[in-house]
């Protein structure tokens, strides 16, 4: 049955409309849970607030379990689900740049738009910086094209790399995530902040 677009069950335009609704819900929930505060995201790195970590990991676990169960019931063909291709070096460098931006700015791309939409000036600056980065990357593309495309690995998944079944990897991730949540909550009591 799924994915709905690949199998022609819904059109591309319907897809955009659904994405629009999901986007609104996503933004609303980000803002409602306080993600539009840059201190909340920065808190992950200083240990006084690990909600961001917990939310994103919970989302990942839900998605993993959901996809595997849907596939089990033949409701989705996992071969047709998009997986981001891996270019190893640019992934590592890009991850470092993005992480540095997280710590310095206190936003991820999604939450910066949340913050800007409720009028936070630092959020607007963050968006400005993001577009500046996109502009520099695009204009200078010939300079780093070789590096950008180096070490292409196709679309490996963790289970393929480790040679394990998807279900085992998911169980492992659940256990790792639970451990991280526990450490996170321990850190919250260890490095508390009154007001942020």
């Amino acid at each position, binding site marked *: 049955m799924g994915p709905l677009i690949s199998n022609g069950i819904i059109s591309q335009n319907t897809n955009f409309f659904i994405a629009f609704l999901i986007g609104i819900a996503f933004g609303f929930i980000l803002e409602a849970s306080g993600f539009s505060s840059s201190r909340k995201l920065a808190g992950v790195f200083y240990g006084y607030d690990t909600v961001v970590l917990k939310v994103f990991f919970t989302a990942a*676990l839900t998605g993993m379990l959901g996809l595997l*169960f849907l596939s089990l019931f033949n409701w989705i063909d996992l071969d047709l*689900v*998009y997986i981001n291709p891996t270019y190893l070096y640019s992934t590592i460098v890009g991850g470092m740049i993005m992480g540095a931006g997280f710590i310095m700015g206190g936003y991820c791309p999604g939450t910066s738009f949340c913050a800007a939409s409720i009028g936070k000036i630092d959020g607007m600056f963050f968006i400005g910086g993001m577009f500046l980065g996109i502009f520099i990357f695009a204009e200078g593309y010939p300079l780093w094209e070789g590096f950008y495309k180096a070490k292409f690995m196709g679309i490996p998944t963790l289970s393929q790399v480790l040679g394990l079944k998807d*279900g085992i990897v*998911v*169980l492992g991730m*659940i256990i790792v995530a*639970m451990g991280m949540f526990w450490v996170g909550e321990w850190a919250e009591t260890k490095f508390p902040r009154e007001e942020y």
Partner: protein
Amino acid sequence: MKPRHFLAIIIIPLGLIMAAIPQNTTHPYKLTPAELLEHVNSGMQYFTPDETADMIINKDPSLLLIDVRGEDEYEKFHLPGAINIPLSALLDEQWKDYLNQDIRFNVFYSNSTVNANQAWMLTRQLGYENNYVLQGGLNYWVETIVNPTPPESTSPNEEIAKYDFRKGAGMALGGGGAVSLSGSGQTAPALPKIAPRPKKKRTEGGC
């Protein structure tokens, strides 16, 4: 109870279930035997010789005849405009765009219907649409189009009209009984150009 514990109670068992059961490697587009049987029983996969002859004479571009017999048999005789995909080569990569498309009717034929039906069943199982089988195969084709039996003079008008059509079609397609000879030495038609069907793609996505 902390939310963390609540979450753990729900997702750890789910993870255990996922780890314990075998992975699903089937592809949902495959037909179950029951569905396939239903297709076979409905007889919807057949093109009658009359329909086919009519389309050939009218040079209907939506028809592509596919001869699934061996190459030598194809060289000896084949229907006008037919291309040759021997059954043994059916799954070759080069034929994929011909078999998996949605702009024309592919009609498989062989001497009887056995091999053509096998080809049809294989393509059906692969999820390809628009593949059909020439009813009765070449043997029935010869009986009906090439050498039609004249109906009784007392037959209803429809029967006589059908006979007239078949006779005309037989002549148009190579002059009655001579059709089997006209096929010999005939060069194989150039393969028609096929615009590859947009493949089912992984849905694009991103963060």
